[in-house]
């Protein structure tokens, strides 16, 4: 046992960009409650250097939160060739939506694709389940 677990984990600011994914969509057509749907929707993809900086490996859990919500996600490394420090990607779905603000500045259009949040490591917590979300 180290001291690490007693210290609060440092937090890192990120912009999360959401996008669609046909495999998740296919799983959703079959069932919104399928394991595959949950697995694909609860992954956050990070820049490789960002992962080193934060100290997370592919498959680790991370806590992502902001004023709108808090979710535990699985961190994976980016599949993009170009580095994108400070930007993370998620497939759109209830996990990403948990972080989208209700306030639309009166426009009625939430910022689904441009989410500000802070991310930190999580040792113990399990990835948020669909049931915990709503």
């Amino acid at each position, binding site marked *: 046992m180290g001291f690490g677990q007693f210290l609060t984990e440092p937090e890192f600011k990120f912009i999360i960009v959401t996008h669609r994914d*046909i495999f998740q969509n296919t799983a959703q*057509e079959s*069932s919104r409650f399928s394991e595959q749907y949950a697995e694909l929707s609860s992954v956050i993809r990070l820049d490789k250097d960002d992962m080193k900086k934060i100290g997370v490996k592919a498959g680790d859990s991370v806590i992502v939160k902001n004023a709108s919500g808090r979710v535990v996600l699985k961190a994976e490394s980016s599949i993009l060739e170009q580095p*994108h420090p400070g930007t993370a990607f998620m497939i759109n779905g209830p996990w990403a939506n948990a972080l989208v603000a209700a306030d639309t500045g009166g426009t009625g259009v939430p910022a689904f694709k*441009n989410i500000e949040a802070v991310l930190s490591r999580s040792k113990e917590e399990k990835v948020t389940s669909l049931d915990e979300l709503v």
Partner: protein
Amino acid sequence: MDKGPFVCTGCALLCDDIAVELQDNRVTRVDTACRKGVSRMKGCVSPMPCTVDGKTVDENVAIREAARILKEARHPLVFGHGNSTLEAQQKAIELARKLGAHIDDTSSFCQGPLVEAILNNKIPTCTLDEVRHMADVIIFWGADPSHSHPRHLSMYSYFPRGKQRQRGWEEDRTAIIIDVRKSDTAVICGDKLYEIPVGADPDFMNALLNALSNKVPKTPFNMDPKRILELANILKKAEFGVVFAGLGMVYSLDSLDPLFSLMDKLNETSKFHLIPMVGQYNMRGFDHTLFRETGHINRVYFRGEEIEHGPQQSVIELISNDIIDAAMIIGSDPLASLPGPIAKKLAKIPLITIDPCENLTSRRSKVTIPSALSGVECDGTAIRMDGVEVVLKQIIETNKLTDEKIIARIMEEI
């Protein structure tokens, strides 16, 4: 039975060349549809039960209960519609009118602004068939059709041979992609990817506008002006250009003005059109229908004889401001697709879900009524992403009611 070809309702591309094989009244094989289309046509593994308060009931009971909830509510909302036929949408609007309800659809936080601009003739548009036969310069802007509309490039926009595009994509067409990341579609477009920062779409439009006017195109993110000038040159020489606008673009524009200016400029030297990358198969259909009836594509409140419209009538603001006190959801899963804080609020009011399949919203609903899956279990008409009307055919028999029938029955009870 009809021999086909059938129409896939997996997305607003509404591919109409699908063949199926049946066994025991189930779709067991699907030809020509993409992966997600196949998954849709084969049907879901969790069909929706008919329930009131979680208990299985007879259809009549559920319909009566739904009618009661809607009648007793002071501010009911009728929401969804993107996965229903035009006929069902028409009925849903009738119901909302009769109830003095609020009505809105997913276009409210999606492609609505572009569909509205097109219906008001503010942006030139064209059909996908014209794209197939004529388009030589194709721009995917903030869109990744390989994931959202998988057959888009092969069926219409890039790879097919068309009347005026006989020599194939390498020689006859140029596909350009503007996005915040190298998506799978961008991989196919090679060096024609213009990668921009998140939210920088208006800046890029501006830079492109300058380049088209032979000024040095500057961007706050320092993209090489030479590359932008190169792009401007390709666009100027286009015989038939088309912009496929995805949500990435829509969400980055606070106002459509930069897009209007760009389209105007492009049309000074060449012919450019825009088609919104509508997701749900008949979202555009709903917008057309409501527009014809009220002059608005979405966000309508039937207040007595009057019609109120505006952002405050959007599904998001209505829930956010605690206006609505009951909601009927047709073919949509708002608890999954709305921002978390809004979804939580929505879950607290009495909900009625009409859908072929169970979803997050249905599991939190007071009443759930299973409906026939359009294009598979029932026929009807729909409007493709480009505004063209498409006839859907029924493939298999079912005793489930259609959305249209269910809404009509609820109206009778009211």
